[in-house]
């Protein structure tokens, strides 16, 4: 008889089932966010996206924290923006999400509404938010609950390489008056002066910030208050027509080069490699860009379309957020770490403005003296910008907007769709995704 064997195999299957259900149980509950900080060894995982400069600074901040709390170890998992969200979705789905998650405005509602993030209100004992400007803090709320705290604020900007302009004897434009037509004209001068080696403008059309600003300059918004797509097709078509003009007139690189760069990291962009004189970026990326470029880069306000609405089109974007996985086994320790990153001058002095001009006002004033020139310039840019009300948080379901945007930009640049047709298709597709979520 082979009873012995089958009993054993049954046992092992049984053990497997028990293990599986234990795992599931861990998944459901997570630890107690309001509990005491453990004295035993605690391991936390922390994930973020960014450039080399950010990885170094973040690692320094981690080291400072673990020196203070030797029983807590934190392993960093850092990636490029493009791979970050795939990896996050996969680990969350596999019930293996990192404890501390760098979050973006695009994805906040998607993750929060599905219950993947910890309500930070439950961790208030360890994570204080009273030093943060209430308006900024509100950007991390979904359905009234604080799922994320902003690390800082950023604003969309035009980065110009003044070394290149000087080399071609082209004056830096006055950004208080310039228009999109001026950008075309100056960009063309650069392309001509360099003999094609350097293009005037690095084409955009792959990030939501550019569309937001374009819509706001025309007095519209990307989403209305109820979360419906509200940008008029004609406005969006104008946006793509402009990008198409840049490519066709040689002001921006050939479409295939543009597409290639859009898929690469910041360090390989036209701005970072000094192959485009003008490029749109978030102001806080200036330091990373300057480090990669090695030349003089300067922040300019975006050109306008000359309409009245353009005056208040800039806005403060929460540059990114800290959030904690709802399934973290050590939410109290994770909250303590976020508190350290957010509210201590020690961490602030290391991180500086890499994740936005710090949202904690004490930290902000403490580090002002220590800022490098590029960080100072980023802070000054924010201070001088005239901003309007922040746009609505990206609705649940619309976190894929940049993929949809990218595909339509590609279709326009390769002239597979007219700007008008692309605009209509984009709006329809984005709305479908929002409705389906």
């Amino acid at each position, binding site marked *: *008889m082979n009873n012995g*064997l089958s009993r054993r195999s049954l046992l092992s299957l049984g053990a497997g089932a028990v293990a599986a259900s234990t795992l599931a149980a861990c998944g459901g509950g997570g630890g107690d966010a309001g509990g005491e900080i453990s004295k035993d060894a605690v391991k936390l995982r922390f994930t973020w996206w960014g450039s080399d400069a950010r990885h170094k600074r973040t690692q320094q901040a981690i080291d400072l924290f673990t020196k203070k709390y030797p029983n807590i170890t934190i392993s960093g998992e850092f990636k490029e923006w493009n791979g970050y969200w795939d990896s996050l979705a996969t680990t969350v*789905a596999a019930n293996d999400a990192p404890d501390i998650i760098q979050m973006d405005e695009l994805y906040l509602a998607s993750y929060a509404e599905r219950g993947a993030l910890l309500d930070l209100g439950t961790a208030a004992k360890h994570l204080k938010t009273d030093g943060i400007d209430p308006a900024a803090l509100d950007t991390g709320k979904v359905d009234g609950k604080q799922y994320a705290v902003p690390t800082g604020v950023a604003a969309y900007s035009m980065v110009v390489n003044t070394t290149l302009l000087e080399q071609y004897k082209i004056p830096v434009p006055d950004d208080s008056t310039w228009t999109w037509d001026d950008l075309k004209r100056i960009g063309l001068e650069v392309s001509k002066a360099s003999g094609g080696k350097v293009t005037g403008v690095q084409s955009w059309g792959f990030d939501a910030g550019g569309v937001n600003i374009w819509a706001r300059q025309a007095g519209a918004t990307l989403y209305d208050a109820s979360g419906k797509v509200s940008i008029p097709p004609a406005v969006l078509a104008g946006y793509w027509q402009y990008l198409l003009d840049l490519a066709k007139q040689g002001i921006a690189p050939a479409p295939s*080069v543009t*597409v*290639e760069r859009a*898929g690469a990291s910041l360090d390989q962009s036209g701005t970072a490699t000094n192959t485009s004189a003008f490029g749109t970026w978030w102001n806080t990326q200036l330091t990373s860009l300057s480090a990669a470029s090695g030349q003089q880069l300067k922040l300019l306000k975006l050109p306008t379309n000359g309409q009245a609405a353009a005056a208040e089109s800039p806005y403060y974007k929460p540059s990114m957020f800290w959030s904690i996985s709802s399934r973290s086994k050590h939410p109290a320790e994770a909250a303590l770490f976020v508190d350290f990153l957010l509210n201590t001058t020690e961490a602030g002095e290391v991180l500086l403005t890499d994740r936005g001009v710090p949202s904690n006002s004490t930290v902000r004033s403490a580090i002002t003296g220590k800022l490098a020139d590029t960080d100072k310039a980023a802070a000054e840019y924010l201070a001088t910008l005239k901003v309007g009300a922040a746009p609505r948080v990206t609705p649940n379901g619309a976190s894929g907007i940049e*993929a949809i945007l990218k*595909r339509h930009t590609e279709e326009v640049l390769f002239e*597979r769709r007219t700007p008008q047709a692309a605009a209509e298709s984009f709006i329809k597709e984005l709305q479908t995704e929002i409705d389906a979520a």
Partner: protein
Amino acid sequence: MSALGFVRKRDDKAAYLFLLPWFAGLVLITAGPVAASFVLGFTDYNLIQPPRFNGLENVTRMLGDDRLHHALGVTFTYVLISVPLQLAAALGLAMLLDRGMRGLAFYRSAFYLPSLLGSSVAIAVLWRQIFGAEGLFNQFLNLFGLTGRGWISDPDTALSTLIVLNVWTFGAPMVIFLAGLRQIPVMYYEAAQVDGAGKFTQFRRITLPLLSPIIFFNLVLQIIHAFQSFTQAFVVSGGTGGPSDSTMFYTLYLYQRGFHNFDMGYASALAWLLLIIIAAFTALNFWAAKKWVFYDD
């Protein structure tokens, strides 16, 4: 009798014991998720909240999903072009190597190597570099005064670079062809030569018919393999299937629905549709095989 029974039982035990790790792997890693995906195919499941049954909604959704239809088109194009090219290259090289050249073992390994690497991330990254706007391929073209383009970032050529990549991994079918060629008795060729048959006639009348079971085997395997291609397109397009969906393989679309759009119910249904498509292609292959595959026994 009883003694024999005892021995057999002992053998059984050992066999089962050795099978156990594999069996546990099959159940927990493969069969379990396969069964789960079948059930999930009839649900709306966002990965984090519990799935919700929605009947055949996913199926009706497939009918109206333009991007799915586009992904099917891209995948069919890829399979139908790359597999025949790959098999032709494999057969051609196998015949070259079969002529008994010196250092055969070395060449066989060298040509086989890409098969091992072809679906790896490293090669896909390498491909990006080779066919990028400033890549090796364009530098090569520059030598002849030609200006290339970003082959991978241009929707007109992106899929072709992936087809080339797949053709390049001809090693596995080549080795099988080589083994098959070795099985063909030399006397057939000698007899044909005596009868005055040229090289081409020998190939058409002797090699092809006698090799047809091997060709069939390779065809079935490579078609299945090509339908499942994922890594190459994923890495080369940075996970987007771009530019403008030109490399949107079926598997990549499935992945995007599941992991980018948190649409795992629909993605599960898509996985089963792919299974049905591959099964249909394989069945078609077996049916057609009756007309052209020649078995020597």
